[in-house]
């Protein structure tokens, strides 16, 4: 049985799909994190975010996070899905879902996965403002 679901897609991410993948009769809890595009950053109005990735490597890094989460925490299954392309305000760049027998492990693994994803997975976002565009994190 496959315990991890790793996906990068230019289609809309689906919360129920992630839930359905991790849900299992042996589990008492499922923790989920959904990243959503915020309408402002540092008090500046954001129009949209444009995500691009080094996809084959990003998939490998996402798989490593999932495998490490399974090794570190008492969890059953984990899904890590990331969207690429232009996302409007309120749309979903990332979903992480984790199921476990007891809820604490699911919460810990879910936070670990999103924290690590933001550090290691080669995906970049460009913020589009009314007066221009900026690659996030790229300027000292």
């Amino acid at each position, binding site marked *: 049985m496959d315990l991890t679901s790793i996906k990068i897609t230019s289609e809309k991410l689906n919360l129920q799909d992630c839930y359905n993948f991790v849900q299992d009769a042996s589990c008492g809890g499922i923790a989920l994190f959904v990243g959503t595009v915020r309408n402002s950053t540092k008090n500046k109005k954001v129009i949209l975010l444009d995500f691009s990735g080094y996809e084959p490597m990003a998939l490998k890094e996402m798989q490593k996070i999932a495998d490490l989460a399974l090794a570190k925490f008492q969890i059953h299954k984990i899904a890590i899905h990331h969207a690429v392309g232009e996302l409007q305000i309120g749309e979903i760049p990332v979903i992480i879902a984790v199921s476990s027998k007891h809820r604490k492990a699911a919460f810990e693994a879910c936070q670990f996965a999103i924290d690590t994803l*933001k550090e290691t*997975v*080669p995906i970049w976002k460009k913020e589009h403002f009314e007066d221009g565009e900026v690659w996030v994190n*790229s*300027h000292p």
Partner: protein
Amino acid sequence: MKIQLLFFGIATDLAGENSVSYELKSAATIGELKKDLLKKYSKLKNIEDFAIAVNEEYAENDVVLQENDVVAIIPPVSGG
């Protein structure tokens, strides 16, 4: 020897290209390549730092490059 260079994120804009075949001396390390790149693509100095991936895996400065390696310039990531 030849390697393939890939640029991502802001590095694409700064280097002005996505992908290019690149000639460097054999047995060059990643540290040496980085110095070369900062000369050839001087705008890369505009970002504080960048990581390097070789054949889709992060690699440190002391790694020795091989002919035909696919070397990616990875500016600070911002997914999620």
